[in-house]
């Protein structure tokens, strides 16, 4: 089956500023693709190009096998989206905002609106004016609008923005459910790395308009650095002991770190050495570099 999203050498400049350059993405169907980047990295520009909202300076975009034309044509019946911060007609209620979306989406089923309201937990606010909603509920309204027509492909720009921790978990579960049960493809941009780490099956990292890396979550697991963290009551003595035993121990703040394979594979040996030399460990744990560390390493610590 052809990919859900395919861009080829996508570029876009605003005057002298190159917002996106030569971005070639490939998002397979059923994936949750996390599109990572710092603010201003080119995430929203890429998303706008995917949705035909801006004309690329160069390159092409295909969604669900259909090229996105310069006149806004695209497979929009099968695509749900939320770009940047969510917006709504402030003097209209949540229900009316969704009714407008339902009609523009050409959804005949009148039950789609109440279903979307229920799905996003907006029941209490259904008849409130959108202008009075909190940022989190406005975000839920945006997500409800994106999901109204049960799209095959969901393109979300920072979906966790403004949501409280419970809301973040709820949306994460919803997106996971939709991909698992309905086979929906999700493309989500984010700068919240933990969110992407927990949800995405594939990750693309964009930095200064360039796609630095695209990798599966499993590949990321393999690429992440591992280290053995050791804590003792006497760090200097422990460092000396381990150095004498042939390990390259690095002291950082209140811990010792060992990166060598023979240390990572046999932490019990390290524990034995330290106990025998009278500096028993108070903590001994193999930790894996998190996505944040990996991202910063890749982008040169630009955060």
């Amino acid at each position: 089956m052809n990919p859900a999203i395919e861009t080829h050498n996508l570029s876009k400049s605003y005057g002298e500023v190159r917002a996106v350059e030569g971005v070639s993405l490939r998002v397979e169907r059923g994936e949750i693709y996390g599109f990572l980047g710092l603010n201003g990295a080119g995430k929203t520009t890429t998303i706008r190009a995917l949705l035909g909202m801006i004309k690329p300076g160069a390159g092409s975009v295909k969604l669900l096998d259909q090229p996105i034309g310069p006149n806004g044509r695209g497979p929009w019946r099968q695509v749900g989206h939320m770009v940047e911060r969510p917006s709504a007609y402030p003097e209209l209620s949540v229900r009316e905002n969704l009714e407008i979306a339902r009609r523009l989406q050409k959804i005949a089923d009148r039950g789609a609106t109440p279903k979307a309201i229920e799905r996003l937990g907006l029941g209490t606010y259904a008849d409130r004016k959108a202008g009075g909603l909190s940022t989190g509920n406005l975000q839920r309204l945006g997500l409800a609008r994106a999901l109204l027509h049960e799209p095959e492909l969901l393109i979300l720009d920072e979906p966790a923005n403004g949501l409280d921790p419970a809301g973040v978990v709820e949306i994460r579960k919803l997106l996971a459910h939709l991909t698992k049960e309905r086979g929906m493809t999700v493309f989500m941009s984010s700068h919240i790395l933990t969110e992407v780490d927990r949800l995405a099956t594939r990750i693309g990292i964009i930095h200064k308009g360039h796609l630095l890396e695209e990798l599966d979550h499993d590949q990321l697991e393999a690429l992440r650095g591992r280290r053995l963290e050791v804590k003792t009551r006497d760090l200097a003595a422990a460092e000396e002991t381990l150095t004498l035993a042939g390990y390259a121990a690095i002291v950082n703040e209140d811990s010792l770190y060992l990166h060598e394979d023979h240390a990572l594979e046999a932490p019990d040996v390290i524990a034995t050495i330290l106990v025998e030399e009278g500096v028993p460990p108070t903590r001994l744990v193999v930790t894996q570099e998190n996505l944040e560390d990996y991202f910063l390493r890749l982008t040169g610590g630009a955060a």
Partner: protein
Amino acid sequence: MNGFFPALWAEALKARRSKILILTTAAATILPIIDGLFMFIIKDPERAKSMGLINVKAQITAAVADWPTFFQVLLLGAAIAGAILFAFITAWVFGREHSDRTAKELLATPTRRETIVTAKLALISLWVLGITLLIFVLGLGMGAVVDIPGGSPELIRESFGTLLLISLLTLLMMPFVAFFASAGRGYLLPLGWAVLTLAAAQIMGVLGWAEWFPWAAPALLVSMDGGPAGPIPAHSLVVVLIAFLVGTMATFAWWRGSDQAR
């Protein structure tokens, strides 16, 4: 056009829930009320003074309180105020999508962008028609209440036809306002444009070039001396149509192809 009526429904809902609908309706009532008051004062200045409507006895010798004068003032007022009022409506219908940042929700849907623009223009036309009818019906009521002489079914019919034509010619200038509301992403540019063209129309009138300036065309339908205005010249209609087509094409082209980067 596929999706036109749902899009029109959406536009109508936005208008119904807005304060602009009440505001423009209120603004439209001012003209016939002022006109009626004007007739009331001219008809009996002493009574108007005793009622506190005027401070000094009005000395208006040129004007007479009758139906022809009443309609002349109403039509002239509609030709001038209509340009601003209709521009206000158009600026809101198109500009609000940018000021509320909702334009992006209209771009990637199965309803084509052209359909949405057409629905917006259709709503503006209906809105303008409603306001025109309100001005005329309220005008008839005011004239009847003031009890001015000189009315006839023929005069009413003719004045109604002229008012409709004035509104139509003014409406045909609105696509330019729509374009500036879209390209300017808000209200400032379209309203500035409306004021500019209104002022330019006055200058063109003074210079004697009004017939060639489309924004001056509505005023060509109103006789300044109280007599019947002649038919609008064919070349004036042509320049109006050209301006309408250029404005419409520019608006559609902008919605179809411009970067919506905000």
